[in-house]
């Protein structure tokens, strides 16, 4: 059996698990403790097989289901294998966590959740395998549908229903765009296999249209501006493992689709394509990060941060497209590597963070940052594991989040090689924006961690919060380890990415990197740029140890525990007033809100001196919502009202319609 068969076996296994769960619809113990760990095993297997498959040539298979004359073509090449690895890694950890998470079964019976969950996983895997338009769309929509039902798991809550509706609607519109895109790609050959689409070489206009449709369709799923509005609604609504999967894995399938269509089926394109993607990516990144710093709800904060990361990935893709358009293979590979690396890194730390919020949610029942705090004392496991995710998410060395940003900035520095002066002028600005985004991401992450896990508990009940269950710790640890390992040893992973870049842009970084050992990451040449996470970590550790040596050994200064000083307000601190005097989530985000005021639609309610119960409230909304979406809905309503005038209940009028139609038709056929 070759790899693709094994992958199909894994998919089938997931489906079987789902079906099995139907027979134990309400048996939480069985579903959680037996089925989900099995699912995790399968995920691990998937990751392993796919990893092996990256280094193999393309493999094809056909399922005799689907349309007559168009059986489901499947193809496993480096690109799909790479994303399958991501899916496997994400699925494994999330399933482990879920084994401990699904205690009560949120609204829907656990068995059903299990089914939807595994169908979701299977569909995502199949999306990356699909090798013809029909199969792709079927899997794509199945994925959307399964995730939709997962989001509505807790459908008793009206907000959840609305969020899910918005999500499915935008997903569906995106799918329609993708369908149109395939329709353009097949260039009237009527054959929707990717092999054929690849063979069609469209003219510049049509390929540009196809590209635009692809960006719209996949952007809707990935959450690129301005189609991002569903994301901060749907992620908080879903159960945390689902949010983790959606944010960490599902969004990546959109990136996969974008890569597949743009690089593989369309063979790259004009340089301005890259510019479009670059612009959209930057806009998303900036908007996402700025909004995430001002959120007051932890999962919304993370959702916006996902928008930011997707934006950065898209920026990398755009840069790769630009380089490719000018035939700079290596540089294109560099940018692409940054993007692909980011895909895995984001999968790791974002899953970790979302699962962390899940644990917090279960322990405290609070998702509002304003009611959390100090959890590092009551839930040390979660807190310390999430800290890894936070550091990685802020893009700090030596963790996984830093490397893609490093590579991205590196590839910006090479834009002097571009023949196009306009781009040469533009790129520094983009680089600056990326740097700004990275720094702001750090701000948002510090806010997230500081407000949730540090400081004084803002509510009494937080003191009784119980730490995560063993299974949950396992899931968190899986991702934390991943984030650390990927951060410390990027070079082996570069080999994997190398295969993908070879397939897409015809060159890779592997040789250049291997030239200087597997500890030193130096994409082009060591004298140009180099970064060695291990040495970095070693250096910091050595310095820290030196500090310890000086502080603890040379001088044996005693250590005394006492109430916090708090500039003499100690009694206040003791009286738990501190919990109120420390920064709230709003407070921490306030400077950013002031600086980036134009981004938001802010509605304030300030207390007047005469209020008996003074109330301060700030609501921050997305301008796109009122700017674009509501007007669109209003337009549809207006048209519907106009159409409704056709049917006013009077039979004579109806007869008149028939009569006029008849006469008109007669005139038509007569002429």
């Amino acid at each position: 059996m070759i790899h693709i068969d094994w992958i199909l076996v894994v998919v089938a296994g997931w489906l079987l698990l789902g079906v099995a769960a139907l027979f134990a619809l309400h048996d939480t113990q069985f579903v959680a403790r037996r089925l989900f760990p099995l699912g995790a095993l399968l995920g691990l297997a998937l990751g392993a097989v796919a990893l092996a498959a990256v280094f193999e040539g393309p493999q094809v298979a056909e399922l005799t289901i689907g349309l007559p004359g168009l059986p489901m073509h499947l193809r496993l090449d480096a690109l799909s294998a790479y994303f399958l690895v991501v899916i496997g890694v994400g699925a494994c950890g999330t399933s482990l966590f879920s084994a401990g998470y699904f205690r009560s079964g949120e609204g829907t019976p656990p068995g059903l959740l299990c089914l939807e969950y595994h169908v979701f996983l299977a569909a995502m895997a199949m999306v990356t395998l699909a090798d013809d338009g029909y199969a792709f769309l079927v899997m794509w929509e199945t994925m959307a549908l399964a995730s939709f039902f997962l989001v509505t798991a807790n459908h008793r809550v009206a907000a959840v229903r609305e969020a899910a509706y918005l999500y499915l609607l935008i997903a569906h519109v995106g799918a329609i765009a993708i369908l149109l895109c395939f329709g353009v790609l097949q260039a009237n050959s009527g054959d929707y296999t990717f092999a054929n689409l690849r063979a069609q070489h469209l003219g510049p206009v049509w390929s540009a249209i196809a590209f635009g449709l692809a960006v719209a369709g996949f952007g809707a799923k990935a959450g690129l501006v301005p189609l991002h509005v569903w994301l901060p609604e749907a992620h908080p609504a879903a159960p945390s493992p689902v949010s983790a999967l959606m944010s960490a894995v599902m969004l990546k399938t959109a990136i996969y689709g974008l890569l597949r269509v743009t690089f593989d089926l369309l063979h790259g394109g004009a340089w301005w394509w890259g510019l479009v993607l670059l612009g959209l990516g930057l806009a998303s990144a900036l908007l996402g990060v700025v909004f995430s710093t001002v959120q007051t709800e932890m999962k919304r904060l993370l959702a916006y941060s996902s928008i930011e990361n997707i934006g950065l990935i898209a920026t990398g893709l755009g840069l790769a497209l630009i380089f490719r358009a000018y035939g700079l293979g290596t540089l294109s590979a560099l940018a692409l590597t940054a993007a692909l690396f980011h895909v895995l890194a984001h999968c790791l730390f974002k899953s970790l963070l979302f699962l962390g919020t899940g644990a917090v949610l279960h322990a405290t029942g609070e998702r509002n940052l304003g009611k959390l705090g100090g959890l590092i004392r009551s839930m040390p496991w979660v807190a310390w594991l999430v800290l890894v995710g936070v550091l990685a998410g802020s893009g700090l060395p030596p963790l996984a989040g830093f490397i893609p940003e490093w590579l991205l900035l590196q590839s910006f520095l090479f834009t002097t090689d571009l023949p196009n002066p306009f781009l040469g002028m533009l790129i520094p600005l983009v680089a600056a924006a990326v740097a700004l985004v990275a720094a702001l991401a750090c701000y948002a992450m510090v806010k997230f961690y500081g407000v949730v896990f540090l400081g004084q508990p803002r509510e009494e009940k937080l003191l009784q919060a119980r730490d995560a269950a063993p299974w949950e710790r396992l899931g968190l640890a899986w991702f934390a380890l991943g984030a650390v390992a990927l951060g410390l040893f990027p070079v082996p992973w570069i080999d994997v990415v190398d295969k993908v870049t070879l397939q897409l842009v015809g060159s890779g970084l592997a040789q250049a990197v291997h030239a200087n050992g597997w500890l030193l990451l130096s994409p082009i040449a060591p004298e140009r740029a180099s970064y060695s996470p291990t040495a970095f970590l070693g250096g910091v550790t050595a310095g820290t140890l030196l500090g310890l040596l000086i502080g603890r050994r040379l001088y044996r200064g005693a250590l005394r525990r006492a109430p916090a000083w708090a500039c003499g307000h100690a009694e206040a601190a003791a009286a738990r007033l501190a919990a109120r005097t420390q920064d709230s989530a709003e407070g921490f985000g306030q400077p950013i809100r002031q600086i980036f005021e134009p981004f938001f639609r802010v509605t304030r309610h300030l207390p007047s001196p005469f209020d008996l119960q003074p109330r301060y409230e700030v609501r921050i909304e997305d301008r796109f919502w009122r700017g674009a979406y509501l007007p669109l809905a209003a337009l549809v309503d207006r048209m519907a009202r106009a159409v409704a005038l056709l049917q006013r209940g009077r039979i004579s009028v109806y007869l008149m319609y028939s009569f006029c139609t008849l006469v008109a038709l007669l005139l038509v056929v007569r002429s």
Partner: protein
Amino acid sequence: MIPATVPLFLCLLLPIAGGGVLALTGQRDAGPEINVAFSAATLAAALWLTADVVLGAPVLGLGERFFIDPLNAFLVTLTAFVGCTTALFSRPYMRIERERGKMTAPRMRLFHSMYQLFIAMMLVALTTNNLGVLWVAMEAATLTTVLLVSVYRTAASLEAAWKYFILCGVGIAQALFGTLLLYLAADRVIGGGEGALLWTHLAAVKTQLEPNILALAFAFLMIGYGTKVGLVPLHNWLPDAHAEGPTPISAVLSGLLLNVALYAILRCKVLVDGALVNGLAGQVMIGFGVLSVVVAAFFLRRQRDVKRMFAYSSIEHMGLMTFAFGLGGPIANFAGLLHMTVHSLTKSAIFFAVGHATQRAGSQAMDDIRGLLHASPTLGWGLTLGSLAILGLPPFGVFASEFLILTSAMRQLPWVTPVLLLALAVAFAAVFARVQAMVFGDSNLPPQSHPPALLPVFAHLGLSLGFGLFLPPFLVQWYRQAAQLIGG
């Protein structure tokens, strides 16, 4: 070897006999069971007939008066099948209606016998070879359904039935004129007499028929049968009739009657295409199709009554089929037939679920139906999956057929595709918002005295799902032949 005419007559005579029997015994408690029995028998006969046709050659019966080829054979099976499942569904449904006092013994009798006659008439319309008889059967089917729609005798149902009768009566009258013109045209080629109305004869000489006359004829036929298909702007009777009649009738109206009317148009289109070279018929159908899809999509946005909403969705889908057949060509025709099948199955399944839901809520207003999933999970899932299927989400069959239709549209008239897709998106937004509100959340629905008949719902959905994932080769073969006959 039994001649193939035996199953043919069986499946024509069984429902007629059923109508007779039920006209005497329909009011009894066993009425529903008898109804089911006859429908099941009809289904068996239909399957037998279909088997004969698929295995062997087209069947001619009673001289040449009846004619079965793959095209109508598959519709015969579909009709018999949906007729049977609907009978199954109406068993508990009508019982509850009777307990509620909405039905009385005589009305039960009327309902059951008319139901059988309706099925019979549609089977006649499908199997006959004589275009005149086709018209007669269509008219008769209209009359029976008029009685079925008005069976509640409420003001609303009377109004609906009246509009239904007048509009369809007038429409079908135009169809008669069209048939007349066909006869006139054939008269000049093959001489008068009954032969001049037999489709097989006409099809044989279709190229020699006088184009001018056929163009006119098609205009009248299109208006006539188009009214029954429910094409915009001839559709006005449809939502009322669906909303006010008993739900089983809404199911068969949407699931069967519209198909049969479209089938009639197709038969005529074949002849017209033979005579006219300019493909006028196709263009006309495309026009009606697109108009119906777009307008219906926007109608969906404002619906309050659940059955009315799904009636509009039927208009939308009939428009899509008309569009597909208008495009012509093997793929489009194939897609149209597939869409016909899956739409009948899915839509009737939806109406079954909706029927039970409305009975539980005691109202057809969607605002009164809440939390179906909570009240009865199976019912809720039936409605949810059915709606998602009808909205064209994979892996259900509707997606497959819509994919084929849209892709062949992309090949033949690219500019139409975005319009259709836009309309589909609007329809999705409109319908799904409503359905979601109905199925999710907490519910206040009281329990029901009879267990709902969910077998039909899930049987239909299962089939629709199967068609989406895998079409068995013999079925594909069958569809291909049918598509061939429509002039693929």
